[in-house]
């Protein structure tokens, strides 16, 4: 389906925001100013955006430890996110959660999650709720290729099938879980979709580095689920451009692999080539967005760095509704 100019511009911008957010974090982390563990999403942008551009606030997603991209794509405030990662009082979670726990439940973003595999059951619950609401909402569990071996993921798939819940198990196969290859850890020689299919779901496979392919595929999947056909699973082949977490020397990669994936599988480069080649958008349109995004990220970082740190007594708030 030919996408509207508006949609293409928005999608490109969203992917670019994610990319620059992550690339900038990669640089900022070297300064030692950002605490904790940070897992960057660079390389996988077409997945988050290709999925979330189909969703409204009545649809739910739940994310993983590698959550920034999903958060941005689902509409979380970028500056609030940056403050959160910097551990500031004005962060989206008041500095209590950090990179691995960014959420905006009102927007249907049920949180990044530090426990591998924890998201899938939670997504089933949101799907049950959406089904009961009867407005066609769907619930999407993002999951890595490593997370697909966690018992919770399997349980959730079976339960969603049994309950015919509108849940999409979205596997981002970036070929690695930490330092381990997917062919080793997933006993079906790395084939995640076939295993999911055997749970009784319809499955889709696609190139997660191609926005257009992902977007079209997800249109189909989401329509299928909105129509009440029960759950579905999707395996998207993608790449992570950085290490598992910041500081990972990535010696498990093949020679030249990082250069190759940056060159051949960069969803932003591919998007630009495609839309300018087909004369759907002008390079200048995209350049303008690039500049706008860089400014946004500059501001986000500058504001985060200048923002006040949480005061010690905030430790004690937000535990329960009454304190």
């Amino acid at each position, binding site marked *: 389906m030919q996408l509207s100019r508006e949609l293409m511009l928005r999608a490109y911008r969203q992917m670019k925001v994610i990319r620059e957010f992550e690339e900038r974090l990669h640089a900022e982390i070297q300064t030692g100013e950002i605490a904790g563990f940070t897992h960057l999403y660079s390389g996988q942008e077409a997945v988050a955006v290709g999925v979330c551009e189909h969703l409204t606030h009545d649809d*739910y997603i*739940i994310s993983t430890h590698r959550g920034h991209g999903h958060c941005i794509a689902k509409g979380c405030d970028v500056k609030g996110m940056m403050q959160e990662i910097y551990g500031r009082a004005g*962060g*989206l*979670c*008041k*500095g*209590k*959660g950090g990179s691995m*726990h960014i*959420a*905006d*439940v*009102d927007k249907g973003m*049920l*949180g990044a*999650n*530090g*426990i591998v595999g*924890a998201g*899938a*059951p*939670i*997504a*089933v*619950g*949101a*799907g*049950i*709720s*959406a*089904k*009961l609401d009867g407005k066609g909402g769907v*619930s999407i569990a993002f999951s890595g290729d490593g997370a697909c071996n966690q*018992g*919770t993921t399997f*349980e*959730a798939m*079976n*339960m969603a099938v*049994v*309950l015919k819940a509108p849940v999409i198990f979205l596997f981002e196969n970036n070929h690695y879980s930490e330092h381990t290859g997917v062919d080793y850890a997933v006993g079906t020689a790395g084939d995640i979709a076939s295993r999911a299919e055997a749970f009784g779901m319809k499955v889709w496979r696609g190139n997660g580095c191609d926005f257009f392919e992902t977007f079209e595929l997800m249109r189909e999947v989401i329509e299928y689920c909105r129509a009440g056909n029960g759950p579905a699973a999707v395996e998207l082949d993608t790449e992570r451009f950085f290490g598992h977490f910041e500081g990972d020397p990535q010696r498990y990669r093949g020679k030249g692999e990082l250069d190759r994936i940056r060159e051949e599988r960069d969803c932003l480069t591919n998007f630009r080539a495609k839309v300018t080649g087909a004369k759907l958008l002008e390079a200048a349109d995209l350049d303008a967005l690039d500049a706008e995004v860089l400014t946004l990220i500059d501001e986000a970082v500058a504001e985060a760095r200048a923002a006040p740190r949480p005061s010690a007594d905030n430790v004690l*708030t*937000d*535990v*329960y*509704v009454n304190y």
Partner: protein
Amino acid sequence: MATMQLREAINLTLHQEMERDPNVICLGEDLVGGMGTAGGPEAIGGIWKTTAGLYAKFGADRVIDTPISESAIIGAAAGAALAGKRPVAELMFADFIGVCLDQIWNQMAKFRYMFGGKTTCPAVIRVAYGAGRNAGPQHSQAAYAMMTAIPGLKVVIPSTPAEAKGLLASAIRDDDPVLFFEPKALYATRGEVPEEEYLIPFGHARSVREGEHATIVTCGQLVGTAEKAADTLAKEGIGCDLLDLRTTSPLDEEAILDSVETTGRLIVVDENPPRCGLAADIAGLVANKAFAALRAPIQLVTPPHTPVPFAPELEQAYMPSTAKIEAAVRAALNYR
């Protein structure tokens, strides 16, 4: 006021709350019973019969029978709660917390805090707990101490049918995640229960007996045991101030400390093994905050540091008993 079993009081509350609020949903294994069989839904109820009739009245979208997948059940409750529902999940035995702890400990209990106070997670997990039915090491544990330890959770333990009704209604309406421990050995005990709606607030202990010589603090099925001990001692002129905590989190510190200020003697009776259990928890509170009032060593009446044994004689020896509670009170009184 009707007389009913504890399980009936729970069933009645579930009916009333589901009727009152369309956001209340129930889920669990064999909650309906008979799904996918010739007998059909509700051919037979759940094994505790606490959910009977819900399916017929509220239908499959709100009364959800699940596969044997506790992590998915509790995770689904967490997710439905984030999405605006008030799920009441059933864990058949408290021991099964072991297979789904992450969803309780690291997910629902932490959402509000991790997300900076911007969400609520109003899920209730109903669990049947405790020894007394010779169900053996993996089906008899108390487990409420482990849950009390978790910041972000509330922990409720009713001791009678009437308490169960008022506390469960409060749990379902509470905006925080609640672990609701049902003493399975008491499911069939009867008591007077008001049929109309009433709520018992959390964090307020119930005064079961008043007395000025010693304070006994306990909860759940051991309230009855302690009551008997207190009655025996009363006949000898020993007055026990017996508190039923009702909720171990939040804890009614004030009631405990006030009582100890009067009696100077504390006996804590707990069904968890002794290490890092509720007995020690309350002892620590009192040794810190009411030290000056204490006139005798704090007495901890708990099972030993062992799993729950199967054989009736062993299980009896394992459990806190009236005799052990009486002995503890006497030990406190005879000190110096």
